[in-house]
């Protein structure tokens, strides 16, 4: 995995005043995978994501994309290589979906002049891929939460980059839209080979979507592995300080976990008859 990494952070250190948010963290993201970043609030997940996107000033450490330091890339090159969606996005009044997605073409467009045919086809393709083909003329502010999140993803797709960084993309959505979004992202990963790194609070969502889960605590990655290994009571208790039960999906045997809202119970559910 070490040589094939498409995105790699070395010794990432970020501090706000005296508080260290990232503490010399190393991470390597393999191409074509879906990685979920999980951990308690304030453990540095979002800061790590911003650092990987080159948006976070670092006290120490470097981020490389395809072996090239991110700092060496011009801004437009960087935008063609990776896209990042923040947790909360401002939506300017009056902006239509098509216009928003067209913003994603900034790094590809000529400095002067309108959209080229390549721009247009990329925009239409991004709209189609997110199921927004018929919504281009609608105002972003008037969309439902799920549609709005997909519009932002369409903007990132229009950047035609290979890495997509997402900060809690499902947080404000209802269950149905959460499922739709997870499936849509999985699809994008499978069909287009886009590498996805995603901060998630819902561990079951992480398990359903990712092939690799990073568990973070206090600015470090404590555990790293496939969902089936990460969704076990021991690592979760270490990271969250809460006892969790592990279940396996009755049909697909996919790992699931729920918090034990009861005093410590020695036997995990799966072990009982």
């Amino acid at each position: 995995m070490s040589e094939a990494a498409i995105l790699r952070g070395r010794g990432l250190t970020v501090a706000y005043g005296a508080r260290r948010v990232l503490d010399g963290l190393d991470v390597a993201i393999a191409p074509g995978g879906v990685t979920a970043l999980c951990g308690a609030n304030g453990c540095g997940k979002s800061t790590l994501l911003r650092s990987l996107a080159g948006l976070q000033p670092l006290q120490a450490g470097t981020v490389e994309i395809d072996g090239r330091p991110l700092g060496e890339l011009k801004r437009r090159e960087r935008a063609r290589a990776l896209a990042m969606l923040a947790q909360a996005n401002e939506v300017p009044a009056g902006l239509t979906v098509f216009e928003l997605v067209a913003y994603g073409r900034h790094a590809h467009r000529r400095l002067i002049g309108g959209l080229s045919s390549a721009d247009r086809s990329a925009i239409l393709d991004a709209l189609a891929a997110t199921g927004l083909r018929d919504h281009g003329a609608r105002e972003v502010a008037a969309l439902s939460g799920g549609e709005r999140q997909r519009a932002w993803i369409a903007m990132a797709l229009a950047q035609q980059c290979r890495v997509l960084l997402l900060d809690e993309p499902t947080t404000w959505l209802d269950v149905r839209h959460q499922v739709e979004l997870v499936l849509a992202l999985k699809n994008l990963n499978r069909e287009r080979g886009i590498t996805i790194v995603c901060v998630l609070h819902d561990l079951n969502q992480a398990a359903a979507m990712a092939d690799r889960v990073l568990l973070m605590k206090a600015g470090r990655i404590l555990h790293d592995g496939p969902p089936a290994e990460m969704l076990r009571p021991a690592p979760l208790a270490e990271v969250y300080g809460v006892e969790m039960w592990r279940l396996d999906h009755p049909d697909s045997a996919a790992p699931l976990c729920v918090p034990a809202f009861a005093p410590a119970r020695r036997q995990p559910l799966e072990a009982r008859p």
Partner: protein
Amino acid sequence: MIALTVDRPAPARASPGLRLGLIAAVLVALLALARLWPTLHALTTAHGPAEAEAARFLFWELRLPRVLAGLAAGAAFGAAGALFQAVTRNPIAAPDLLGVTAGAQVGVLLGLTVPALAAVSGPPLLFLCGLGAAALALTAAGGWRASPLRLLLAGGACALLLNAGLTVALALFEQNIAGLALWSGGALYQPGAAGLTEAALWLLPPLVALPFLLRGLEALSLGDDAATGIGVAVLPVRFGGVVTATALTAFAVALAGPIGFVGLIAPNLLRAVGIRRFGSLLALSALTGGGLLIAADGAVAALSLSAGLSTAVATALVGTPILLVLVMRGRALTPPDRGEVAASGRAASLAVVAPALLVALVALAAFGLAWGETWLPPTRWIAALTGSDPEAALILGIRAPRIAVAVIAGMMLAASGVVLQSVVRNALAGPELLGVTQGAALTTLAGLLAWPLMGRPETFALALAGGLATLGLILAINRRRRFAPLPVALTGLAFSGLFAALTYAVIVETSAQPARALIWLVGGTYGRAWPDAVALLPWLLVSLPALAFLSRPLDLLTLGDDAAAGLGLDVGLLRALALGLAAVLASAAVAIVGPLAFVGLLTPHLARLVGFHAHGDRLPVAMGLGALLTVAADIVGRGALAPTEIPAGALTALIGAPYFLWLMSRGRKGAR
């Protein structure tokens, strides 16, 4: 009381309010004592009856009332500021920013000029007018639930409107109300002991009302729903708060004139040092406000500056550094929600609107050429051009360049406003509110007064220096906070207040004809000739390609800094370029037409309200609207009360502000 523990878990310090209150009280008492000491000393050591009589008069009739008036007015301004901030849940609300002070000023004017109102002149009339202004701002903003930003914008438009009206009145009735001109700079009223006691009676009703409002206003900080949930009658509390604050403002304006700053600064200063409870905040705001005002008054006296340096100027001088330190240390204020002024209505088409604007502009310009004391039909224009009608040529030679200057300056100010608002991402960031206009005006005016024969290149140089320096200061102060909208707005407000006050002081100090300089200050096209237009045009032409080039990056910036950077934009570079461009545009326009209000601040919103949000469309539409507005102001100002000239700057606000307020209130109904 449940409400109190919510925002401050486990108060570690033992009631900082009480300790700070004691310290502040001691400080203010010392200040007052220092102000009173010389006369008090003279009183106790007086020899002989004549000297004693004089000393007694000096102490009891002059100095003591002055100090008390300063304390009372400052306290009322401070408390009114805290109240308005609680009611609107916005830390930069203040009586002057919401137009209430200007409303009270209108009351003073009415009391002086309308004999029938003489009976109620003084605090009651001021109160009614202030209340009217508050009602206007609130109505336009969309009622109590308006977002803080909408309310501030509506209040700002209201204040601009009323101030413009006042300036027109000052310009028209210069002789009758010379006293008002001086007073409107703000000065501690010298009514003597009797006048002070009379005014103090009007302080009683708001003081009686306050205790009943305290708990409700405090709960408002939780939000309307939560406040209702714990049993607060939100509407009556809000209403009572506004009425009480307006009464306090009216009282303070009656005593001391329209002194800004105190209402804005006092509560924010206290929040920055950790006062959260509303009761303490209100009481300490009053104390701080009173202290601030007598400190400013004392500073004027101590430095034995002339009477021309009014209390308002001194307050701005004392208050600005405090406010700036607060902004720089970043302790003040959490930003309120960043609401848009209005959701744009329908999506308008540039292909329809742009030609319509152009046709309207041409028609208006043609009308402006023809209309006036002498009606000039187009046939005589041709005759004038061919040289066969010297009279028409002479008149056109006066009218045409004014219109040309109006068109160019209007476009430049509007473009500057659009760019500034987008770059700072703050709907309040017109060149007027950021102090760029005032900075350019101050340097230009100072230059004009120092070297009356100064040529155009020097004027441009001075204006650019003033505008760019102001902008540079604002940016330097806010660099560490990444140009967060609210601190930038606060910094700009501080500078614009300071520079406006200083400009005023310069005028009073040096000019034999304050009214003329006042008119220059309002901005206008009076007496502008072809060389002015020719000098201005290159600035516009050079900036057009830059504007076209920047419009797309500015679109991206509306998504936020991170999103724009993620899309491949060099946000820092864009900010620097765009801000520089905006400052150059505004300063160059100010060099020729003076600080024309309203155009730069509100035409960008007009363009948005008409239905344009992308910069490629919004810039040309705003520029067209700016040109249209300025030309209309030029024509009306020239002809409406001929031969008296109304300054165009007053008219841009008088024409534009009502339209803006109307659009705002309409947009709200459409949007929600």
